[in-house]
């Protein structure tokens, strides 16, 4: 895209500094948005991307710096100020009211055509018109709670288009979409820039950034560490700018010998939270020394599968055999004692107790066993020695073993969980979203640890929404859709395109 117009920028942010207690989230950041372009903000979690855009959207106030809109210095104190100035934002967590309809969500905060009466008719009509124009299919009368994630995002975009924004900020908009939904989204976004709108695309997914951007600004630790365009750059160079050193994007896969089956799942059915089947007729086998990846958009039964395997959720029918023993109706503790480890996807909710110290979290799974405790008393000398070893071996960065766990960064908490789960030399490892939300450095490390376990003969079930991760680590990839396995591909034949179709529920025969 060399056709970037050189008009006056829609937005100029000059020398923006934003401090939080103990942290500088943005330091003298310059950023601008021109009409008709997609300007990407690239960076790791905590690099300050969202902070910068929250300043522009009036959610935070900058401590220093100036914002100019079409050349005019402007103070944006609140989202209403931003909206009045034609700035819209699509947040990472959707800002929709589930109990209201699409039209009501769109109309929220706007004056009604009939003043004190809420008149939704014109809103509904306008939504239908815009749906046509932009190919954004949304039913104005549907309730948000009835909609799938992809549809909800279309409602978010509709809200912005309806308000006729000239600048739209999209904070990690693709994290919940299937590859084909991402393609559709990018078409819509391109269409929006053609009308002269300027878009800010916040992301850490390198291939999407290369695909969509006109310009790229890279942030690290709150500072700008690079400005480039896709034409002048590559994924490797972008990763270097993000992390500040060379990064191995594809994990090193060591030698591994696959042996006997360690996980055999037969016709498994598991119910979800609402009592409806979340996993149906699932058939799966993982051998020692093998990584089987489960790809799929979240909410297709992956969480329920992992919970049933770890004993946290009862299986409605079918059989789970791990390490040669039927674990279908065993308790989590019994399953763990069989050499099964589990890295849960919600590290703060299921993986650790935030208020506990690092050491306490490290002994959660063996505190009642010798040598950690003897005759009902905790053995603090032993705990100190073993935990120090683990923290060192798994490079968990923590001031001390007594530090409260919730004070650590996401990446370090994840390393702590992995240290605990891998300390017992597991035969089977269930790893759910092991690198979600952690920085590239930690992700790189976690990947190498998982690959080491594979070489040592652990059977690993890797559940991940990150396709690059699944393809990079797995020997075979199973795609889950609506509780079923749509297909299993060998590593060599797995492409984003083929996986994407399966993730959208299109079986190989149909396509």
């Amino acid at each position: 895209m060399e056709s970037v117009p050189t008009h006056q920028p829609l937005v100029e942010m000059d020398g923006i500094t934003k401090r939080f207690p103990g942290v500088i989230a943005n330091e003298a950041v310059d950023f601008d948005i021109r009409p008709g372009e997609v300007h990407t903000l690239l960076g790791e979690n905590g690099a300050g991307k969202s902070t910068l855009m929250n300043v522009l959207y009036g959610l935070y106030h900058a401590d220093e710096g100036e914002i100019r809109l079409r050349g005019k210095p402007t103070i944006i104190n609140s989202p209403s100020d931003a909206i009045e100035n034609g700035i819209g934002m699509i947040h990472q967590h959707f800002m929709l009211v589930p109990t209201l309809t699409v039209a009501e969500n769109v109309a929220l905060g706007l004056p009604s055509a009939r003043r004190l009466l809420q008149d939704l008719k014109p809103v509904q009509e306008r939504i239908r018109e815009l749906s046509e124009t932009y190919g954004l299919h949304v039913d104005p009368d549907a309730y948000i709670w009835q909609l799938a994630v992809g549809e909800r995002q279309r409602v978010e975009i509709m809200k912005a288009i309806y308000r006729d924004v000239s600048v739209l900020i999209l904070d990690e908009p693709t994290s919940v979409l299937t590859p084909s939904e991402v393609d559709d989204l990018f078409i819509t976004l391109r269409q929006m820039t053609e009308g002269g709108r300027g878009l800010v695309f916040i992301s850490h997914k390198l291939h999407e950034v290369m695909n969509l951007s006109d310009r790229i600004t890279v942030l690290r630790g709150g500072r700008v560490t690079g400005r480039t365009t896709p034409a002048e750059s590559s994924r490797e160079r972008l990763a270097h700018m993000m992390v500040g050193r060379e990064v191995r994007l594809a994990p090193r896969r060591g030698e591994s010998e696959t042996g006997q089956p360690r996980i055999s799942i037969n016709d498994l059915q598991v119910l979800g939270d609402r009592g409806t089947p979340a996993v149906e007729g699932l058939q799966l086998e993982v051998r020692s020394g093998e990584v089987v990846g489960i790809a799929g958009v979240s909410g297709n039964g992956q969480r329920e599968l992992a919970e049933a395997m770890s004993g946290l959720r009862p299986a409605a029918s079918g059989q789970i055999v791990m390490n040669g023993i039927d674990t279908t109706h065993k308790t989590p503790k019994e399953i763990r004692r069989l050499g099964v480890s589990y890295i849960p996807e919600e590290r703060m909710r299921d993986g650790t107790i935030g208020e506990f110290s690092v050491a306490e979290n490290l002994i959660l799974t063996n505190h009642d066993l010798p040598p950690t405790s003897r005759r009902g008393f905790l053995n603090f000398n032993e705990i100190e020695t073993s935990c120090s070893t683990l923290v060192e071996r798994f490079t968990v960065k923590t001031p001390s073993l007594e530090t409260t766990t919730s004070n650590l960064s996401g990446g370090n908490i994840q390393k702590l969980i992995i240290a605990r789960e891998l300390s017992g030399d597991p035969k089977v490892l269930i790893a759910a979203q092991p690198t979600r939300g952690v920085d590239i450095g930690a992700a790189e490390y976690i990947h190498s640890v998982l690959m080491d376990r594979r070489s040592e003969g652990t059977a690993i079930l890797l559940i991940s929404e990150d396709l690059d991760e699944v393809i990079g680590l797995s020997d075979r990839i199973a795609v889950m859709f609506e509780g079923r396995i749509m297909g299993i591909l060998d590593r060599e034949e797995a492409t984003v395109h083929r996986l994407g179709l399966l993730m959208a529920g299109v079986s190989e025969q149909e396509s």
Partner: protein
Amino acid sequence: MSDFLTVSVLLATIASAIRLATPFLLAALGETIGQRSGVLNLGVEGVMLLGAYGAYYATLRTDSVMFGILISLVVGGVMGIAYGVVTLALRAEQGISGIGIFIFGLGLSDLLFQKQVGTPTPIDGLGDVAIPLLGDLPVVGEVLFHQNALVYVAFLLVPVLWFVINRTPFGLNVRAVGETPEAADSLGVSVNRTRYITIIVGNAMAGLAGGALALELGIFQQNLTNGHGFIAIALVYFGAWRPIGVMAGAMVFGLVSATVLQWKTLGIVVGTTASIVGMFPAVLTILVLVLVSRRTGQPSALTRPFQRGH
């Protein structure tokens, strides 16, 4: 003869049920609008007591019932501002703050009564108003349309409140703020301004509910409301946060209370039995809440203070 008596007793019971339901209804509708915006106010009872005392004292001094009603609204509104500052600006825990408001209202109303009035002096309360035409209808007219003005106000507020919540931009804001305040905020709807309005209006209605009680009875005494405010909160849950459901709940309580009262007056229950029967409304509250534990319709953001960026 005995048939006539039964029918007339029944009619009188219904008429009295409507009358007794009125304070419940006013307070519960006020609580409904507050809860729909995501704010729980456990202090309804305290606000009712202050409203009741305010209405009583103002009427006693000026002989104007209208002035008494006005004062009960103002007292409730002021308590609403106070509760808003505590829970919205200072973001205090709503459950605990509400209990504080209750104890404050209980104590202050009694203190003022002891200091300013001392000996219970009856006032001329609200007189019945017959609605033209409708009041002339046989049976129905007598039961429904010979009531005091606040009864009509309370029941008229049911459709009015429904309309405001479901058919106005303000109501859309209220529903959004009670469910997903972050979404409302991101679209420029002021979460706290919306909540201030609902709390002040809701508390004014609680004050009015207390006033209705005092003016109906023509008297004030310590703890005059005797749990009305707490039952009103229960009615909001019973009514699944919908005005019409709340009205149904208020009528059930009105009927039970009226029946108990009727039995006592007619001497059907006396002594200890009467005291036990007098507990029916309270027992009913517990039963209802156990049965209606589904909580469908409960605003998701109920009791959750809003702070931008959290």
